[in-house]
């Protein structure tokens, strides 16, 4: 398979993703061997405690699943086998693509670069509006996978001249061991690692992960516990803790907020969130308000009105955040980056395409203002 053939699969994924959908491994996969369901990986998991009577407690995420023999965690991909805890998805890639980094979205991280993007089955949340539920809400034996151990991921990224590996689509936390080992290896090959996550992870594994990756995008689903309880089956506070932890590290951070009409679009909640972000991590990390498309278990609501996204963006700017974007609305002016000092357009985007970049190094070309991010 040459680059053109490979990109055909990617284009399929990317094109459909514009409508909010990413497909898993559905195409002929010449370069990789198809993993059979009976070939789930059996690599010992990290961050767990052995308990009496062959039970274990998983410490990877704030669920702290307590599992008996033969039981799996909420994520569906980590299993207690006779008192030892295993990841079943190490190297079991259920979706891969070459994506523009803007698709993640990262707007302040190597704009215009391509990321070799991978995911396994499973997720430690259960969002009713999940855009990738065909892989995230599945157990690994329920999806087609290809076997791509870390060395093959790195080699593939290099082969297709991608400077970045992205751990994305489902929830990378649940394939932690695979992501971590791949990131380490990628660094040795001078590749960058980015993570697209909901941030529902415990501080210790996150601290270790931050040391081997370059950027993390957090999906902040809402700013109320009520929403996390009813639509996500998770908790808000650990996610906020993760945001603070990443902001205090060397890894770059961007935040996405998918705006779902009537469910998490309350302007007062958004204002509180923006105040919290400014107070806790400062005004310089990008915040993306993304447009919702009806999906998975929430098909009864229409796509987010663009006017709602604009109103919420205005609130965020009023509250003093410097880089506030609107996503999933190709051609909208708020896809572009404006210098917070002189107000000039410095990166013009259309969808995932960079049309113009008026920066010199990490500075605005017009006024010399430093624009935070990773630019080279």
């Amino acid at each position, binding site marked *: 398979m040459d680059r053109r053939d490979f990109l055909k699969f990617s284009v399929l994924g990317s094109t459909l993703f514009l409508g909010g959908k990413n497909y898993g491994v559905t195409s002929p996969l010449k370069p990789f061997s198809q993993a059979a369901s009976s070939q789930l990986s059996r690599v010992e998991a990290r961050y767990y405690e052995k308990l009496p009577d*062959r039970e274990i407690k998983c410490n990877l995420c704030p669920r702290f699943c307590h599992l008996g023999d*033969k*039981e799996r965690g909420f994520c569906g991909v980590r299993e207690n086998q006779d008192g030892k805890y295993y990841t079943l998805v190490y190297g079991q890639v259920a979706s891969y693509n070459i994506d523009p980094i803007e698709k993640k979205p990262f707007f302040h991280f190597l704009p215009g670069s391509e990321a070799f993007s991978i995911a396994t089955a499973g997720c430690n949340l259960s969002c009713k509006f999940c855009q990738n539920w065909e892989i995230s809400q*599945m157990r690994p034996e329920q999806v087609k996978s290809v076997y791509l151990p870390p060395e093959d991921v790195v080699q593939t990224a290099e082969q297709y001249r991608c400077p970045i590996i992205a751990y994305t689509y489902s929830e990378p936390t649940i394939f932690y061991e695979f992501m971590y080992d791949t990131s380490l290896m990628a660094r040795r090959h001078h590749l960058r690692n980015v993570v697209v996550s909901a941030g529902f992870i415990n501080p210790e594994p996150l601290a270790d992960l931050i040391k081997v990756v370059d950027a993390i995008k957090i999906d902040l689903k809402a700013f109320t516990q009520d929403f996390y309880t009813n639509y996500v089956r998770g908790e808000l506070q650990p996610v906020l803790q993760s945001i603070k932890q990443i902001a205090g590290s060397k890894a770059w951070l961007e935040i996405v907020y998918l705006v779902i009409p009537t469910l998490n679009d309350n302007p007062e909640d958004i204002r509180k969130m923006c105040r919290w972000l400014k107070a806790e991590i400062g005004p310089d990390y990008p915040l993306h308000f993304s447009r919702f498309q009806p999906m998975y278990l929430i098909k009864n609501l229409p796509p987010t009105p663009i006017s709602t996204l604009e109103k919420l963006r205005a609130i965020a700017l009023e509250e003093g955040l410097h880089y506030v974007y609107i996503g999933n609305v190709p051609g909208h002016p708020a896809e572009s980056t404006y210098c917070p000092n002189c107000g000039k357009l410095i990166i013009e985007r259309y969808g995932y395409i960079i049309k113009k970049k008026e920066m010199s190094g990490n500075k605005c070309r017009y006024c010399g203002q430093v624009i935070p991010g990773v630019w080279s």
Partner: protein
Amino acid sequence: MKKSRVVIIFSKQALSPTGIPEPQIMLKMYRRGLELLSGVPAEEALKIWFKPEDRIGIKINTIARRALSTRPETSVPLGLWLGKNLGGEDKIIIWDRTNEELKDAGYKLSTSPGSLKIFGTDSRGVGYTQEPIVNRDIGSLFSRIQTDLIDASISLAILKDHGLAGVTAGMKNYFGAIHNPNKYHDSNCNPYIAELFETDIIRGKHRLSILDALRVQYHRGPSYHPQWAENCQKLIFSTDAVAADSIGWKLIEELRAKKGLPSLKEENRQPAYLFTAEKMGLGQADQANIEILEEEV
């Protein structure tokens, strides 16, 4: 309020000295259990619950492999007897999530024409529904065995203590009919077990609960721990799935008390989903509203 009836059949000969169910005794227990449940001869009773054209699924539980699963010696005699009395054994499907689990529990898979069918949802050409089916907080793909291949269902589940749900029995057995049961184990599986059972696809087809209480894991379940498993040699029958499970719970509490263990309530893991199910009108959880008929064969 009319009480729900639950029948408990005991036999000293239900298990062989090595702990294997005795098929002939199983059949005797089924027949007597259904007679007592219906008040008419067993073969007549079948015609109350099943139409001649019904394809019947027997949903078993093989997650704990051979050590603590619905054994073939228990389920196959039921399937063959149903087939004999309801127009052909090829209309009967004994099933669970995966072929591997079925084989590990001692089953020989079968899809041959004219014979009793035994296979898992992951069989080629079966799988799950393409789109999720939603009921309250449940959103799942359902096994196409449950949605497309059967008209009526018997839940033939192992009765076990469950670390999260409190008790796993006939209702929770249907977690094996959806693709994402791992998503429904928090909050003591409450209200998820009740909400899953409430779906048309489950409740609309469910005819009978038969709890396999031949060997009961009364502590540290659902994994198998021989030191906390007891040979009870009982089968529990009801058309009320909630009542059947409630009496299963009672049996587990009795075993725990006998062994000096705290009650599930004391461990703060009583099966609250049963009371949720009762509130939803799915059956009787309150044991005061359940008539228990118990007999030895």
